[in-house]
């Protein structure tokens, strides 16, 4: 009896691993995945059961998934039907499946100790104060910015500032640089970003080296990024807030431990490994000290020499 029980457990376990393996393989082998064989392609084919013909159609571009990005994303271990209805397995999909409520982020991440450090609940509170929520209400879900299919926690893991900035800004640009998506949420045309920011010197450089949220959120000490996104009327527009020894960026972009560690590698290394530079912020203590020493040496030289000139004429 005991033996039987054991064998059954092994069977269950192997089934579990087999299934896990299947999922991982299936994202990479999209052609053999029940959903992705259609949803990762520009077009799809099916057998029309009424006419009996083979039909080929274009896939709705918003429903095409990037399988490479999915297999790198934080939710890669889930299969499509873990969140979507299993009834999507048949085609044509039933119309009423669209009405089915999907799980929200908080349904899984809320109140869970293992996700406590991400502070999902506090983020939700912040979102409710944001310009996005004011315009679109509850419909402005997390996934509007953080794609549930492909999201990667770049800011927490990468030590390359430019990668973090690029990844983050693409989230904003996916709507703010897209006429249709922007208009759906806001109800009006999207302002031209280059024009709106024309007061900002070296615009391109700024956009590559800092995130939109650096100016467009309030800094909250307890969160990595405050999710209270501010519209242009409340956004930061003062250079010295960042371009100063006490830069705001230290409380936002450079708040992440992974970036802090990079700065702690030693003073010379820090000077040399800087992948970015900001006037007023990235001062090298070594060079600063050297400049003070030279300055005061010259000044004392001048003073001593003039004293000699006065008294030893």
């Amino acid at each position, binding site marked *: 009896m005991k033996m039987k029980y054991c064998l059954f457990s092994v069977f269950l376990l192997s089934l579990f691993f087999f299934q896990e393996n299947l999922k991982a393989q299936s994202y990479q082998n999209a052609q053999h995945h029940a959903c992705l064989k259609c949803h990762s392609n520009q077009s799809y084919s099916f057998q029309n059961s009424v006419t009996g013909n083979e039909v080929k159609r274009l896939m709705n571009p918003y429903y095409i998934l990037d399988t490479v990005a999915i297999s790198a994303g934080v939710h890669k271990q889930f299969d499509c039907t873990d969140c979507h209805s299993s009834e999507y397995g048949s085609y044509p999909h039933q119309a009423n499946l669209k009405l089915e409520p999907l799980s929200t982020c908080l349904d899984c991440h809320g109140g869970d100790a293992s996700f406590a450090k991400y502070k999902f609940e506090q983020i939700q509170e912040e979102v409710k104060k944001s310009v996005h929520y004011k315009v679109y209400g509850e419909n402005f879900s997390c996934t509007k910015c953080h794609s549930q299919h492909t999201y990667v926690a770049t800011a927490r893991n990468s030590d390359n500032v430019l990668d973090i900035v690029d990844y983050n800004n693409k989230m904003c640009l996916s709507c703010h640089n897209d006429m249709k998506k922007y208009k759906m949420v806001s109800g009006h045309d999207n302002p031209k970003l280059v024009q709106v920011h024309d007061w900002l010197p070296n615009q391109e450089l700024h956009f590559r080296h800092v995130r939109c949220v650096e100016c467009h959120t309030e800094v909250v000490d307890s969160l990595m990024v405050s999710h209270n996104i501010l519209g242009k009327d409340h956004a930061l527009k003062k250079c*010295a807030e960042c371009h*100063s020894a006490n830069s705001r960026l230290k409380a936002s972009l450079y708040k992440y431990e992974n970036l802090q560690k990079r700065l702690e590698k030693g003073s010379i290394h820090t000077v040399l490994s800087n*992948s970015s530079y900001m006037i007023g912020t990235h001062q090298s203590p070594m060079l600063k000290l050297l400049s003070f020493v030279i300055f005061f040496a010259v000044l004392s030289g001048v003073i001593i020499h003039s004293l000699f000139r006065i008294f030893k004429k």
Partner: protein
Amino acid sequence: MGTTEKIYFYPVWLRVWHGINALGIIILIITGISMQSSSESPVIGFNLAVNMHNIAGVVVFLGYLVFFIGNMVTKNGKYYLIKIKGFFKNPIKQGIYYSWGMFHGEKYPFPLSEKRKFNPLQKYFYVLVMYMAVPVVIVTGIALLFPEIILDEVYGISGVFMTAILHSAMGFFISIFLIIHLYVASIGKSPVENFRSIITGWHHV
């Protein structure tokens, strides 16, 4: 003063350039320090400092072209030529005069004349500043004005960072030069004599 010999050392173009350059450099130093050490409530706002620095930088750059071309086409350029003979000996001699000789009644080792406008030590400093520091500060300054032209990375180090460090280091060197320049200028027949010369053009030997 009637018996002293006068040499017309500083032609009008040179004096005009020197005046504009002096004003420009002073603005650049003040605004440069202000930007580099900006705090929450800077004396000059960051925006204003950046704009003033950019404008003064362009003015100094244009002025430098005047200085450079002027030295090419007029005889003023030859005062900056350094000879191999006495390459080390002459400036050391001048240095000893400044630190010892002038307090012990020694004679000025390199009297100024139509042929010699600068003493050897002075000449070395002027050449270093005008033909090394200022060109480097101008080139890096133009690069920082158009940062998109700077290489992103040079051997793993940010190009902008390297350019900025070079720019501020040279700017600092020029600031130090300015202090020494102003002080040494006060060593003349009277402390204001040399300052008068750069305005009138005439140097009393």
